[in-house]
Structure formats: C-alpha cells, structure tokens
C-alpha cells in the first residue's frame, strides 16, 4: 500500500457517513429555499428542479405576484413571486435569483427563490400542521412548508382575462 493510497483511504473514512435509518418512523424530504430572507420549504415530491434563473420574460397587465414567464427545458412556465403573494417586505440588493420548478396535479409553474439551501429530511413528528393559514400548510424546524396544492388552486392565479 502506497502512502497516497493510505492517505486517500483515511480521508474517505473520515468523510464517510454512516447510514442512519430513522428509528422513530417516517421522514419527509423538504427542499429549503429562502424568499426575501425568510426560509420556506417545499415537499420534494412537488419539486422538479432547482436551477439558477437565467432570465425570464415579464408580462404586462398582470397582477404583481406574477413575475412573468420562464422557459425551462422546452416548457413555458408561469413564474410567481412568493414574496408578493406572502406579503413579505421587499429586500434590497438580492443576490442571484433561482428558479424552483414545481409540478402539481393541475399544472406546473416556477417560483422565484433567492437562495436554494438544499434538501433536508425532517421527521414527520417535527412537522406541525397549520390549517388556518393559506399557502402555508405546516411549520417544520427548517421553515414554513408551502401548500403547493393550495397555491395551484388559488383563484387569484387563475387569470382569465382578455386584453382589450
């Protein structure tokens, strides 16, 4: 065994993480994003992709929570600004914008995220359901879990309007 191989093995051992199986039941995988400084989580089953937003097309004559449309892998998606929808105070000097592509049973759309924190597995026991609030389904230790179905079913986003 050479010295290099020995060092690499030691390094691999140090980085190696033991496989942890949750002893106390089911876990939920959440994608944690940041919108205007606030942490929100999206259940991973709804997430198609997270990417750097490389430009979108603003659409005139629409409510302010509709940022515009974005092209993703050949599909044209509506891009929603969660900050407007959630009535969050505007943040100045936001960094690189990210796109999170959500796919529901009704339709697919994109939401604007300031940062993509990553995928976190959270115990079901740690998630508290919140029925009262719209758009936020539950509260987890890593952030408020967005109610994607409610968002997709929100009548505000269904715009049937003809341009004069």
């Amino acid at each position: 065994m050479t010295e290099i191989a020995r060092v690499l093995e030691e390094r691999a051992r140090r980085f190696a993480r033991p496989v942890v199986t949750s002893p106390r039941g089911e876990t939920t995988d959440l994608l944690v994003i940041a919108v205007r400084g606030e942490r929100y989580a999206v259940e991973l089953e709804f997430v198609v992709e997270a990417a750097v937003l490389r430009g979108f097309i603003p659409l005139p004559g629409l409510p302010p929570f509709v940022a515009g449309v974005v092209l993703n892998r050949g599909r044209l998606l509506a891009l929603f600004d969660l900050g407007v929808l959630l009535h969050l105070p505007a943040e100045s000097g936001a960094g690189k914008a990210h796109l999170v592509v959500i796919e529901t049973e009704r339709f697919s759309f994109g939401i604007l995220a300031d940062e993509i924190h990553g995928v976190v597995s959270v115990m079901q026991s740690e998630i508290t359901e919140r029925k009262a609030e719209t758009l936020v389904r539950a509260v987890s230790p890593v952030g408020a879990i967005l109610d994607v179905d409610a968002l997709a079913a929100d009548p505000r986003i269904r715009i049937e309007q003809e341009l004069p």
Partner: protein
Amino acid sequence: MRTWTIGKRIAAGNAVLLALLLFVAGAGGYALAHANGTYGPVLREQGEGLSGALVQRLAISRATADFLKYLITGEERYLVSKDEQIARARAALRTLEENSPTPALRSGWQAVSAALDDYNAVMTEVITAMRAGRREEALRIRAERADPLHVKLADLADKVVAEELERTRTIAGAADRVASATLRGVIVAAALAFALGIAIAAGLTRSIVNALQETIGTLATVSTEIVASTTQQAAGTAEEATAVRETSGTAEEVKQTSQLSIQKSREVAESAQRAAQVSQEGRRALEESIRGMQETKSRMEAIAERILALSEKAQSIGEVIATVNDLAEQSNLLAVNAAIEAAKAGDAGRGFAVVASEVKALAEQSKQATAQVREILSEIQRATQSAVMAAEQGVKSSEAGVGLATRAGEAIRTLTENVAESAQAGQQILASVQQQAAGMDQIALAMRNIQQASAQNMASTRQIERAAKDLNELARRLKALVNAGSAGPPAGGTRPQGERIEAAA
C-alpha cells in the same frame, strides 16, 4: 554847531572866553605899560627930586643947628660939621639942578643955591665976628641977616618943592584919568566877557545837557535792556547749568549703559558665531536628511508599485474565487437536483442521495472555503489598498518632506547667511559700541568741562548783571544830575526805567 562834538563846543566856548580874557588882559597890560612908560620917569625924577630936596633941607637945617651950637658954645668943631653939611646941601642942590626936568625947577634950584651961598656968606661973617670977639655984632648980624636968609632959603626950597609937588599932582591927575579910563575899559570888557561867558556857558550847557540827556536816556534804556537781558541770561545760564548738570548725569548713565552694551554685544557676537557654527552643522544635517528623504521617497515609490502589482494579483485571485464560488453553487444546485432525483427514485436512489448529500457538503465546504478566501482576500485587498494609500501618502509625505526639507535648507542657508551677517554685524556693533563708549568718555569729560565753563559763565553773567545794574544806577543818577542841573523836567529817578528821556528844551 549841531554837528560839533561836546569837546569841540567846550573848546570853542573856552576859546572865545580866552580870547576875551586875552583881550582884557592885553588892554590892561597896555594901559599899565603906557602908564608906566609915561609916568614912571616922572615919578622917579620927582622921587629923586623930593629926596634931594629933603637931603639939602636936612643938611641946611643941621648946618644951621651946628652954626647955632657954635654960636652958643664957641667951639670950632661945630663949624667943621657945619661946613660938611653945607657941602652936602650944595651937592644935593647940584644934583637937583642937573636932574631938573623943567627949566623952571632948574632956575628955582639955582635960586636956592644962590640963597644958600648968601646964607653961608652971612654965616661966615657971623663966624668972623665971633672969632674977632665981636659977639654982639655977630649975634646981631645973625639975627638981622642970617635968619631972614635962612627963612628965605627955606621958603625958596619949599616953593620949589611945592612947584615940584604941583607938577607931580598934575601928572598924577593925568595918570589917574588914564587909569580910571583903563579901569572903565577893563570893567566894560570884563562885564562883556562875563556876559558873553554866561551866554556861551548857557548855550554850551544847554547843548551839552541836551546831548547828555539824550545820551543818558539811551544809556538808561540800553542799561535797562542790558539788565533785563543779563537777568534773562543769568536765568538762562542757571537753566543751562542745570541742564548741563542733568546732561552730564545722563552722560554718566549712558556711559555705564554703554559699558553694559559692550558686554552684551560681546556676548551677542559670541553667540552669533556659535549660532553660525550650529546653523552650518544644521545645514549639513539637513542636506543629509534631504538625501535620506529622497531615498525614502524612491523606496516608497517602489513599494507602492509592488503593492499595486500585488493588488492586481489579488483581484485576479478574486476572479478565480468568484469562478470557484460559482462552481460551488452549481455543484450545490446539482447536488440538490440529484437529491430530488434520488428522492423520486425512492429506495433505489438512496445511495445516490448520499452521494448527492456528499457532493452538496463538498460544495458547501468549497463555498465556505471560498468565502473564507474571499474574506481573507478582501482583507488583503483592504490592506493593500491602505498600503497603497499609505505608500502614496508616504511618497507624497516624502515629497512634501523633501520640499519642506529643501525649503528648510533654503531657510537654514538664509539663516546661516543671516547669522553670519549677524555675527559680522555683532562684531561691528561691538567695535562701534566700544568706540561709542570711548566717545561717551570724551562726552562725559567734555560735559564736565562744559559744567565748569557754565559755572564760570554763570558767575561772569552775575557779575555782568551786577555791572549792568550799577550802570543802570549810574544812568539814573546821571539823569538826576543832568535834570537837576538843567531847566528840564525833574530828576527822572521815579520814571519807569527804559523810557527814553526826551530833550529838556
């Protein structure tokens, strides 16, 4: 006359008076000489005549007496005496005859001589009678003839004497008339001379008094002015003496001060020389420091250039880091998408999820490392920025320092020159102050001399003042004297002094 001097006037007056006197004396003398010449011989003849008459008379009387004695006594010795007396009488009569001035007198005396002869002849008869014993006869002859002859003789003589006297009286009367005429003339001349003398004297006096009054007035004025001016001069001299005393005191003080000045200026000159040396040293030191500053400046410039190069390198490092960070973010997103895909794959993707999480951890570590590197790099950039700025400031400071040092060098050079000039000036000041001190010594000496001279001057001024007062007093007294002696105004002793005395007339 007006232009004549007093001496001339007096001389002229006296000459007039002398001429008058000479005239009077000449007239008198002429009269006396004339009288003497006219009556002297007459009187002398008369005297001689009278004395001769007396002699013959006396001789006749004694001869008569001797004759009588012979008659009484009969002694012969008396006859001898009688003859002698007769001879004397005859001699006297001869003389009288010879000296008689007039023929009448001569004939008179000749008659007397004849009568004497007669008388003697009679007496001889008597004597013959006596001798003959004829006494009675003798006596009778004597009584009858001799006595009348004797009387006749006497009468004749008396008559001649009376004639002589008469003549003399006549002559004396003429002489008296001449004398009285002369006396009258002399008296008139004297009176004329007196009157003329009084007139001349009055005129002279008036003119002299006028001139004198004028002169005395001028004298009084002048003497008063002299008194006033000498008084002023005395006061001025006293003030001058005081001023001179003060000045000499001041000169003494100045002398002491100049001694102090000598000391101080010597110290100043020495310190100026020291300062010149020090400024020379300072100039050298400053030139060295200028060189050092220029070296520092060039080094600072090199440092600044290197730091700038370093800063550029740091910026390129920053670009690399940005790239690395971008890669890490992309890796992170890739890991997220891998995790999404793994989650969608279910149990089959569980291993892939682990890999994705590892990739994500690596990306996170890369990001953290890049963040650290960026932080460090930003610190480095800040440091280099501040270093660049510091270097630039250093360059500027060293430039300014060089400029300042150059200016300081200029200033020190000027200062050195000034100090050298000051040193030179200090030396000159020292020399001049020493000369000044010598001069002050001379001044002090001169002031002492002036003080003495001033004291003498004051004393002499006082003497002059006294003399002027005496002069003034003299003028006053002269004025009083002149005014008392003339018909002018009363003596002006009470007049205000300095007033011009007007002419009396």
